[in-house]
């Protein structure tokens, strides 16, 4: 379940982060302001209150405003949404740093070949930016996976509880805290090391493939 939460929230964060990047790079002032506002909000908002608001505050607001009960069984979705929103704010900033790091001469060369602004972004800027910020993105995805433990504060059903939550549940039943928590820590460590290795390996292989120095 930890892997599922990390994967889905990571994917969601990447999509939301990319959309926020589009807003921040837009020529239209309101869109840029929207992008800045998103980052300001979700980067500065602590994750625990955000998750508590989404899982407790939002259903309460929904019921108060619509007069109908909030649909049941959405806790996990809301936890994933909270994680995705939080991580997306950081990913958008990392992506923006990558985009601005691409040399302007590259854009000039692409423009002189007759590429449209969209094609320049798609074919020249984003592929180069992705390689530049790959290590930072890898760190952020690992952080997102570790953040999934914060879902502990939300009373999720047993079958969708992540590994630290499961460890706490088992400890509550057996009155033995050490073994379940050591196991949960080992699971997190293993997943983080594997994910970091895969992403960094990809980045170094790409660098080697194009002949650039790492």
């Amino acid at each position: 379940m930890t892997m599922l939460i990390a994967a889905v929230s990571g994917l969601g964060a990447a999509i939301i982060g990319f959309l926020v990047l589009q807003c921040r790079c837009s020529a239209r002032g309101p869109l840029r302001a929207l992008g800045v506002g998103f980052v300001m909000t979700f980067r500065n908002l602590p994750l625990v209150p955000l998750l508590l608001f989404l899982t407790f505050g939002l259903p309460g607001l929904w019921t108060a405003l619509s007069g109908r009960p909030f649909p049941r069984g959405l806790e996990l979705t809301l936890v994933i949404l909270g994680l995705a929103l939080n991580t997306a704010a950081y990913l958008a900033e990392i992506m923006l740093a990558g985009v601005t790091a691409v040399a302007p001469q590259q854009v000039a060369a692409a423009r002189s070949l007759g590429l449209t602004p969209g094609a320049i972004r798609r074919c020249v800027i984003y592929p180069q930016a992705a390689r530049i910020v790959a290590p930072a993105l890898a760190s952020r995805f690992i952080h997102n996976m570790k953040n999934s433990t914060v879902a502990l504060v939300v009373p999720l059903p047993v079958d969708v509880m992540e590994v630290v939550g499961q460890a706490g549940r088992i400890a509550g039943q057996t009155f033995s805290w050490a073994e379940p928590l050591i196991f949960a820590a080992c699971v997190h460590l293993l997943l983080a090391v594997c994910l970091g290795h895969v992403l960094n390996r990809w980045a170094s292989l790409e660098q080697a493939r194009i002949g650039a120095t790492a």
Partner: protein
Amino acid sequence: MRLDLASVPTELPVPSTMVLRLDGVGKRFDAGPIFERVSFNLRRREVLALCGVSGSGKTTLIKIIAGLVGFDEGRLEIGETDVRADVRYPNELYGKIGVIFQDHNLFPHLTVLGNVTLGLREHKRLSVRQAKERALFELEHMGVASLADRYPATLSGGERQRVAIARALAMDPFLLLLDEPTANLDPERAEEVCERVLALAESGVTMVLVTHNVILARQAASRFALLQDGCCTVSREPAILDRLRYRRV
């Protein structure tokens, strides 16, 4: 891969006799004007060598002609398109003016072939096969077809510059702008690039050649422009280049 050379166009399409006309073009930065009232014409198959000391605005002028930088006064005609100060180039004009940058600006994440086919696929909308054929023809022409699968970071300076020339020529430009193509190259690599530039000039490609290499300028160009102290003087006599004054530091 075998090349079907018969299917590859070898003639550069030219819109009219007059390819380029600058009329009183001026550009200023915050610190003041970099040049003022630059005026010259360039006809089909002519090669103009543009010389001047570093900082005189040669690269800026090339970028203005390429539509990469705006200008503050005057008028510019590219082919049949009239561009005035503070007016953006029409999109269709990009891709028809080939630019070879001083530091080549190849895309590091693409192979040599990928660099040359990018504009063909995205601007000219050629199929992958057609783009590859066209690109390999130009690479062959520049003597770097064997490097098609290599990445720019693994090439020498001279090879990169030849790939950059192939990339620009593959787009069938009616005007080629070369910004110090032999800069940053050792004498041997510079010689290789000079030979290619001279061959292009002899084959009738219309060019503006920015260079500090007076010998190359004299050999390749039919007209000469000197950009100095904010003014541009144009002549058919190469002797004008003798007026070039390098500042002592």
